[in-house]
């Protein structure tokens, strides 16, 4: 760490950190990407040269200081370089979600007035071309993968490698200009602008300064003792603040290596090959892996299956305690070691977690069983709570104080206060500068003293000092009888069942709650196969009576557990439907980070909700769907409405006696 502190002087921008890394860790790997079946590698000194060539090329193309450069594509080293190169020439990089449809891109590109767009491939290029008439400031597009681009009109279109070649050719004329621009960068210059997906309304451009990014990266890296030797797999959307902090902020601060998968579909194989030491994933990745393991174990031989379940039961008993450094008996320890050789070790290798030191999950609540499963294997999986406006970190769980139901203590240098309504506010070096071109929103979110309202309701647990999140503050409501309505609480309990992918609870202002449920096609499909249940489509499987029966038993079990909480017993699910389609970001029902947009779902499926409340047994509906290429179609379905068992609120009675 001493090395880093000496370097900390003057390290006030990404290009400055890059130069330090190129000097100090010249031959250490900075980026790897699997291409043509082989991991291609770039060292820090090679990276510095590539970025310099690109930056010179951008100046050559006419990028000015203060311009916005949009970056769209899957995680690739070239696109990460683009972000740093954009900053080096004094421009502001704006990464966009690659799976956004053209209209969504039109809004963001128009809002920031991007003059330049760097895209990964033809698919993204086509989207930008489709909307370019709406973009008044758009001038040039640079593409990475030349495939299929030959026939395009190249007056405004440039190949990435050509831009770099031109940059190298113009080195002598432009290097002075580049150095001059780089020297101007300091802690207050804009590092990146990220658009928040926004569960309501239009996306907002969050401006983060170098101070926000570098301070947050430094604090979090020190908190988890990250070193130059870490390896991470970068597969989460580049437009998401988390990826920016892990793959750029922390990577440049520590000088560790960023590995990019070959394609989206190969992520699991690549994960195993790289064996990251530091890993970040939303709960659904961990859930998906666990479901896969369980499905595959059912196909294993009897001996293996027995061994697996036997040692897993033992891990469940003592694994978590061993990881937390709590006292565990000698025999139990020995058995755990044996289990590690026979089961846990090979399993972790298969999953790609053989070398993991620190793993994080965030974004959504993770099921306690899933969380404990990974921890019991000896994987140091932790939770953190954060948001774009905070440059990720608000609270984190320190090693040894990890639990499924809290999100940890305030991160280094973060102050937290909770207002009278239970809403969480924070102030930190990572607190964002402003929403771009939106002073009203900035003012309503961040007050004069720098406190930011998170919009989440929560409280500090007595004794441990850990923060617990209840729900989005605006989603917490009241039922007709005045009791508390916290949909997320119930939805999360439902989603912890592998069969249930997504759940949406309704009941604000009503006398009882009803729910929409999405089945998980992998888990339920596998179950159907084993039970010889034939189905032709998602819709058919979702409506199968036996599936409905299974889901009903899950809902009833959740009701039972909800009834035990005196505050929330009113949130039990009285009736539900299993939806005929998956809620999808393309249809606007979810954000790109897969959070349900409650209001939109409520409006869109108004007819189903009415049927849930008026007592009908079936409901026919027509739903509009958007295909990946932006075309629209519709699906018709008749859904069966199911009544669930509801438990009396036991605790209320006890209290009344």
């Amino acid at each position: 760490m001493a090395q880093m502190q000496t370097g900390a002087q003057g390290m006030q921008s990404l290009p400055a950190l890059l130069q330090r890394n190129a000097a100090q860790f010249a031959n250490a790997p900075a980026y790897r990407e699997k291409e043509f079946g082989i991991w291609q590698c770039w060292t820090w000194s090679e990276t510095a040269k590539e970025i310099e060539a690109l930056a010179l090329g951008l100046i050559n193309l006419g990028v000015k200081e203060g311009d916005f450069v949009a970056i769209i594509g899957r995680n690739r080293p070239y696109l990460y370089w683009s972000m740093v190169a954009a900053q080096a020439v004094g421009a502001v990089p704006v990464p966009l979600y690659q799976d956004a449809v053209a209209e969504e891109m039109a809004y963001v590109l128009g809002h920031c007035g991007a003059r330049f767009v760097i895209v990964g491939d033809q698919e993204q290029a086509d989207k930008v071309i489709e909307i370019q008439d709406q973009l008044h400031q758009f001038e040039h597009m640079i593409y990475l993968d030349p495939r299929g681009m030959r026939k395009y009109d190249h007056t405004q279109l440039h190949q990435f490698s050509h831009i770099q070649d031109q940059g190298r050719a113009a080195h002598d004329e432009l290097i002075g200009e580049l150095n001059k621009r780089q020297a101007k960068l300091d802690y207050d210059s804009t590092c990146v602008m990220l658009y928040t997906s926004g569960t309501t309304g239009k996306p907002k451009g969050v401006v983060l300064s170098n101070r926000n990014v570098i301070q947050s990266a430094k604090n979090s890296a020190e908190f988890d003792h990250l070193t130059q030797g870490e390896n991470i797999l970068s597969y989460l959307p580049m437009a998401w603040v988390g990826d920016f902090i892990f793959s750029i902020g922390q990577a440049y601060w520590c000088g560790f290596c960023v590995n990019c998968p070959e394609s989206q579909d190969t992520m699991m194989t690549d994960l195993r090959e790289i064996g990251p030491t530091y890993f970040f994933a939303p709960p659904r990745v961990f859930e998906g892996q666990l479901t896969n393991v369980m499905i595959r174990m059912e196909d294993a031989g009897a001996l293996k299956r027995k061994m697996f379940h036997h040692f897993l039961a033992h891990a469940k008993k003592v694994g978590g305690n061993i990881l937390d450094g709590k006292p565990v008996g000698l025999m139990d320890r020995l058995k755990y070691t044996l289990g590690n050789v026979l089961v846990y070790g090979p399993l972790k290798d298969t999953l790609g977690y053989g070398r993991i030191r620190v793993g994080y999950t965030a974004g959504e609540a993770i099921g306690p069983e899933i969380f404990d499963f990974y921890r019991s294997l000896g994987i140091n999986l932790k939770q953190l709570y954060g948001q774009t406006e905070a440059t990720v970190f608000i609270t984190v769980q320190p090693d040894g104080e990890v639990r499924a139901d809290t999100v940890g203590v305030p991160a280094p240098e973060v102050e937290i206060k909770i207002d009278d309504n239970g809403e969480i506010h924070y102030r930190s070096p990572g607190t964002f500068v402003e929403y771009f071109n939106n002073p009203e929103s900035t003012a309503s979110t961040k007050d004069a003293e720098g406190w930011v309202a998170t919009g989440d309701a929560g409280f500090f647990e007595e004794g441990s000092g850990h923060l617990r999140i209840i729900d989005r503050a605006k989603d917490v409501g009241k039922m007709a009888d005045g009791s508390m309505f916290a949909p997320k609480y119930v939805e999360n309990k439902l989603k912890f069942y592998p069969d249930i992918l997504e759940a949406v609870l309704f009941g604000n202002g009503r006398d009882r709650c009803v729910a929409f449920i999405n089945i998980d096609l992998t888990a339920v499909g596998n179950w159907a196969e084993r039970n010889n249940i034939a189905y032709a489509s998602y819709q058919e499987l979702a409506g199968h009576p036996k599936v409905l029966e299974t889901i009903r038993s899950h809902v009833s079990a959740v009701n039972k557990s909800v009834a035990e909480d005196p505050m929330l017993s009113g949130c039990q699910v009285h009736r539900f439907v299993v939806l005929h389609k998956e809620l999808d970001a393309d249809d606007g029902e979810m954000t790109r980070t897969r959070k349900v947009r409650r209001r939109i779902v409520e409006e869109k499926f108004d007819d189903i909700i009415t049927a849930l409340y008026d007592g009908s047994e079936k409901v026919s509906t027509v739903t509009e769907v958007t295909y990946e290429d932006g075309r629209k179609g519709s699906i018709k379905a008749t859904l069966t409405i199911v009544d669930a068992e509801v438990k009396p609120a036991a605790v209320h009675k006890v209290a009344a006696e």
Partner: protein
Amino acid sequence: MLDNSESYVTEDGRTIGGVVMEMKNITLRFGGVVAIQDISFDIREGEIRAIIGPNGAGKSSMLNVISGFYVPQEGEVLFHGKKRPPMRPYEVARQGIARTFQNIALFEGMSVLDNVMTGRLNYMKTGLFSQALWKGKAEAEETENREVVERIIDFLEIQHIRKTPVARLPYGLKKRVELARALAAEPKLLLLDEPMAGMNVEEKEDMSRFILDVNDEFGTTIALIEHDMGVVMDLSDRVVVMDYGKKIGDGTPNEVRNNQDVIDAYLGVSHD
């Protein structure tokens, strides 16, 4: 009619070269059945040439004549201007012709990678013994060929199934693997026998994109048979239409679409 060495410009602005393969008055009989009757057409360098027609029109027989698998009783096949003698399949492959099959013909138990590698067999010079030992030359040779194969795997976006046995793949992906194997031979002329048969709309769109990209990126001349008229019209530069073993139309998709004989063959004719 164009001269054999003359080039033409397609509707989307690509320049197509001279004649690669010419069929001259081909007649093919199986015993008393006439499968192909006196058909002539040519395939030009860099174009996508489609052969269409209703069931039993003789399309697959025609493709087998092009590939050299059937030898017609009458007529000549000229390849690069020279008359082609009867050949064995490997000789055809060495001439730079590769094909895919209507009913997928892959090695089911082998991985995708190994299947695609078989497409490189013509480029492997080392013997069985040295390949088994995998030393020196044989190793270098495999590395070289693997690189070509990996580029094709990347091109067709099948990285995620590289190590998966073909038997475990769904139909649409198997079709893509077969295309990959054909491409691995780096053909000058690629023959596709119903590349989209049995596919859903999305798979068809994917396959169409790959066919166009192959043609564009590698400059491969492509001859394909297809049932789906929509796909054919969007994809191909020129179309031959067959019915009952006879050629009833030949030209650009637009010309063919407005040809009365073609309309009659596809939509039927009223006899009153």
